[in-house]
């Protein structure tokens, strides 16, 4: 579903991403671990088409992002670290707007409200302006959007950083549901614990390179941490 083929991004002499090759299947959660500047966000932005690759290609559902930007975007949903919405609109209005942009203008108000509810947003909150929302609430609108859009690919950029443990836990549960729906998930994170818990596979990135990939099933949490630190110290 999600595929990087020898994907590279250079900024002048600086190499942000070096020959990344990676596939994420439907129903699979792939976590990218790494320090700041390791190339995780660059990878996600390449899949979003926000930046153009220097070489190689990022593909979604077999289509190259660079040449089929709109088609690929209609298949994906993106949840950044901080889901930012229009503060003067209500949560419902935000969802309505983004869903329409996503090509789901056909959804009824009831459908949209249901989606928000399923994403865990309290019913009465839906008609409040987003300006008063907490970070976790905004993120729920982001997830509702991903649902409403019926995205086949989910790109997550540090989605749990800054969330309190309860919200973080709820998020993991939602991710579980998404996976069951057969969505391919690529998640960049610092959080080793959570990536072990929700991820099917984990990749460790360092200085723009994917240095290791492993399945989480055969690893314990301590193993993962050990491997990660080993790579960081090299």
């Amino acid at each position, binding site marked *: 579903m999600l595929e990087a083929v020898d994907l590279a991004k250079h900024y002048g002499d600086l190499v942000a991403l070096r020959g990344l090759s990676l596939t994420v299947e439907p129903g699979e959660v792939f976590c990218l671990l790494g320090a700041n500047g390791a190339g995780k*966000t660059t990878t996600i*932005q390449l899949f*979003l088409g*926000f*930046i*153009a690759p220097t070489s190689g290609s990022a593909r979604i559902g077999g289509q190259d992002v660079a040449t089929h*930007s*709109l*088609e690929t*975007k*209609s298949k*994906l*949903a*993106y949840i*950044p670290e*901080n*889901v*930012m*919405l*229009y*503060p*003067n*609109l209500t949560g419902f*209005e935000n969802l309505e*707007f*983004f869903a*329409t*942009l*996503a*090509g789901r*203008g056909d959804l009824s108000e009831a459908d949209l409200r249901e989606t928000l509810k399923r994403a865990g947003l309290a019913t009465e909150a839906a008609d409040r*302006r987003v300006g008063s929302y907490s970070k976790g609430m905004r993120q729920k609108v*982001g997830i509702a*959007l991903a649902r409403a*859009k019926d995205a086949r690919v989910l*790109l997550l950029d540090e989605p749990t950083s800054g969330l309190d443990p309860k919200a973080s836990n709820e998020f993991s549960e939602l991710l579980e549901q998404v996976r069951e729906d057969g969505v391919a998930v690529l998640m960049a994170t610092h959080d080793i614990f959570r990536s072990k818990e929700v991820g099917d596979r984990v990749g460790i990135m360092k200085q723009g390179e994917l240095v290791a990939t492993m399945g989480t099933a055969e690893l314990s949490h301590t193993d993962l941490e050990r491997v990660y630190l080993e790579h960081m110290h090299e």
Partner: protein
Amino acid sequence: MLRNVFRLEWRNVWRDAAARAVVLVFALLAGYAAFGGSRSVSAARDAQATAERDEVARLNELREQLGAIAGGAPVKHVADPRNALLVGRELAPRVAALPPGPLAVVAVGQRDVLPAVIELTTKTRRAGARHDAGASPLEKSNGPFDLAFVFVFLLPLIVIALSYDLLSGERERGTLSLVLSQPITLTTFVLGKGLQRAALVLGLVIVLALLGPVSSGAELAASGAPLALHLLLYLLLVALYGVFWLALGVLVNSRGRSSAANALTLVGLWLALLVVVPGLASVAVDTIYPSPSRVELVNLARAAASDAEARTTAVEGDHGKPADATSAEQAIAMQAELERQLGPVQIRFREQHQRQQALVDKLRFLSPAILLNEGLSDVSGSGVARHQYFSAQVDVFHARLKAFFEQRVRRGTPLTVADYDAMPRFVYEEPPAKELALRVGASLLALVSLIAALLALATARLRSGRPSSGR
């Protein structure tokens, strides 16, 4: 897709208290300006009517005296209504008035400095005393608070306030990345937002622009000019000017800088187009075609008027002492001599003004603000061009008036009621609408191409630039 962005933006702008406040303040200022405009136009009309009434009253009085004299009343030597020389030179100054233009309510233009009422005798042609308060020197130097000011100076600032963070704001709030992760291009998104602002600005501008004409509805009908044409050109000018600033806002936003940087850039551009360019242009006009000196003219006119003449008027006019008898022929010759000396100077003034105006006509393309200002002066009939047109008609009329009296002075017989009836009257004719349409049309064309260029540049930038989400 465009429609959705458009709808979102309505909500966004409408729920933004600051945007509402900006729009409200602007509407209030425009309302005040329209109110002031209709006040000043009706004052100008009243003043003109008074001047014309005075003229009629003067003539009627002379006629009555004529009748009285025929009935045997004594003749007052210094005010003899039968004396063609005296009547032409002093007793019956004729009034030539330039009525406020069809949309005078929009722009004061040069109305507060150029005389709208001219008093003509065979001897002189001078501005009649104003019957309205007119503007104080301070008011003139500060500039009038008319709709033209509101549109030329303030509208761009309102548009800037509504558009400086069109895109940068989305980036800074972080909403842009979520938007662009949807199947929509940056260009479409910005275009949608821009269109919404355009609808807002156009709606606002057209409603406010109509405030003026509506508030002085009664006055409008009075003018002979094709009102619909003027109104159309006026609305087009103001609307395109607003769109120009919006396009500039979109272009500045397409550079991907911060909102603060955008605001500074736009205000800088405002300053350049409204203060610096017009300032330099006016320096250029004054330097290339300096007006001849009016101060020198004072002495020149005095030197030209012979002593003998001053002596005659002084003694004759005010003290009723017998004067050195000046024959009619002599008076006519004196007048001709005076004109021979002063004529070239007056022509020099006029020609220089025409050159100046021609230069301004070219320089206006340097800044849309000058384009609009000149355009509003033209459509409102308050500009230099219409006044020059009026002035030329007054010249023709003056020649007729002089010829009329000269003929009667030469004839040497007393003036009769028939002569009074035949006295030429000034009737103002509006300049041909085609001229106006051409002049303003060129401005409109310039604005349209400017907008097209700005938008093309902006779209090219938006297309090429990858929208980085962060920063």
